[in-house]
């Protein structure tokens, strides 16, 4: 049991997909304009990651090696389509905001990376734990990045404005701010949290 907990904790810190593995940079930079957007993107990826990890670990023994990547992609795409339809039905506003980045989870390298590096060599339960850990790590990183950009860029926290009628520093809502914040957060993360 403690082994499984450690797997989840690993995904959060030692194998953090954003700050350590540097995977999934495209949604990381593009969707973190606010904390709530980052959180939703993280949760969406978490959903796909856990389910695809479980499915792939279950079918891995029977998948021929030569076609394993197309098979994995089909499995992942199935869950992404599922997620897309669910979001369209129950959270239409968030579906509109994230737009293209939901279907793009199919080619998110975190999902395929965990399938290749972990799920096809481990059991279903372990793969689920790994997906959960990495997914939570991704969600936390995106939320923190979104929070920092929202505070600096729009002067609000989860949509609650705290600077009155003023504008924030617009650069942080745009692409350069994403790169700047990511860089500095990575520095802080590797200095204070990741101790090997």
């Amino acid at each position: 049991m403690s082994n499984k907990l450690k797997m989840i904790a690993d995904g959060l810190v030692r194998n953090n997909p954003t700050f350590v593995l540097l995977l999934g940079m495209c949604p990381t930079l593009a969707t973190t304009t606010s904390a709530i957007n980052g959180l939703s993107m993280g949760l969406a990826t978490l959903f796909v990651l856990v389910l695809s990890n479980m499915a792939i670990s279950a079918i891995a023994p029977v998948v021929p090696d030569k076609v394993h990547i197309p098979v994995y992609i089909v499995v992942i795409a199935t869950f992404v389509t599922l997620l897309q339809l669910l979001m369209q039905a129950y959270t239409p506003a968030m579906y509109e905001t994230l737009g293209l980045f939901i279907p793009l989870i199919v080619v998110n390298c975190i999902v395929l990376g965990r399938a290749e590096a972990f799920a096809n060599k481990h059991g279903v339960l372990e793969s689920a734990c790994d997906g959960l850990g990495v997914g939570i790590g991704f969600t936390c990183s995106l939320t923190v990045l979104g929070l920092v950009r929202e505070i600096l860029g729009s002067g609000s926290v989860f949509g609650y404005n705290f600077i009155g009628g003023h504008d924030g520093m617009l650069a942080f809502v745009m692409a350069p701010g994403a790169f700047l914040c990511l860089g500095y957060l990575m520095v802080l993360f590797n200095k204070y949290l990741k101790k090997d």
Partner: protein
Amino acid sequence: MSKLIVSPSPHIHSKDSTRSLMRDVVIALIPAVICSVVFYGWQELLVLGVSVASCVLLEWAITKYMLKQPSTIGDLSAVITGILLALNVPYTTPWWVIVIGAVVAIGVAKMTFGGLGQNIWNPALVGRVFLLVSFPTYMTTWSAPKGLFGADAVTGATPLGAIQEGLMSGASVEELTSAYNYRDLLFANLGGSAGEVCALALLAGFVYLCCRKVIKPWITLSIFATVALTSLIFWGIDPSRFTDPVFNLLTGGLVLGACFMATDYVTSPMSLWGGVVFGVGIGFLTMMIRYFGSYPEGVSFAILLMNSVVPLLNMWFKQKKFGRK
């Protein structure tokens, strides 16, 4: 008996140090600073003070508390960054916006990369562009000069801004430029950031730097030449859509950028031909942004873009090693 020091060559030392070169640049900036204070009054002095003080304090604090290294503020480069940043913003900018600009200039663009000599981009320009993108309201509300003790400022657009707006509403360049005469542009009577205001004071500083052999003139001259040539071609094709060369040389931050920002030691190429290519690139990009871009002024963007390719230029145009044929 004095100790015998064994050291590898070269044994000939020059008196130049970072500090002495930077001091010359500060001296060269004095005419422009005096001009801007005379034109804009005590508020400009406040902008200058806040900018220089926050740049120097930040560099001191970062070296002392974060890097735990000996302080580098003695080389005066932070003072220059502060002056250039102040000359790049309107005098009506609130003090806290300038402090943010200084944090970006010194903290992000300079010290993160390892301090003077390691920064890829000109710190003052990074600060300015960050402010321009972040606070467009403060950074594009220019006020016409009001004199040393003038009370009310009249806000308006810079000549370049006015022309871009005018062109969008369908007026021709001839009608729009007739409002400005070149004497005004040279001696400053127009809205703009402090450093854009007096071309002559900036040129005086540039001549001083060239005479003292602190900077090499070819970067600046190739920028001016390219801007003149590019605008001559476009103006020749269609004078009702494109502004003429003299107007382009004297407006905006071109003189400030070409004389003091593009010639920054750290962020410009080392060799002669590298410098010429660098200058031609800046001039060309500036004119493209002015004519076709969404911003009315493009000098700062052009310099930052060309700063990014300086390592490549240094590789392509290697300096001849001393003593080689």
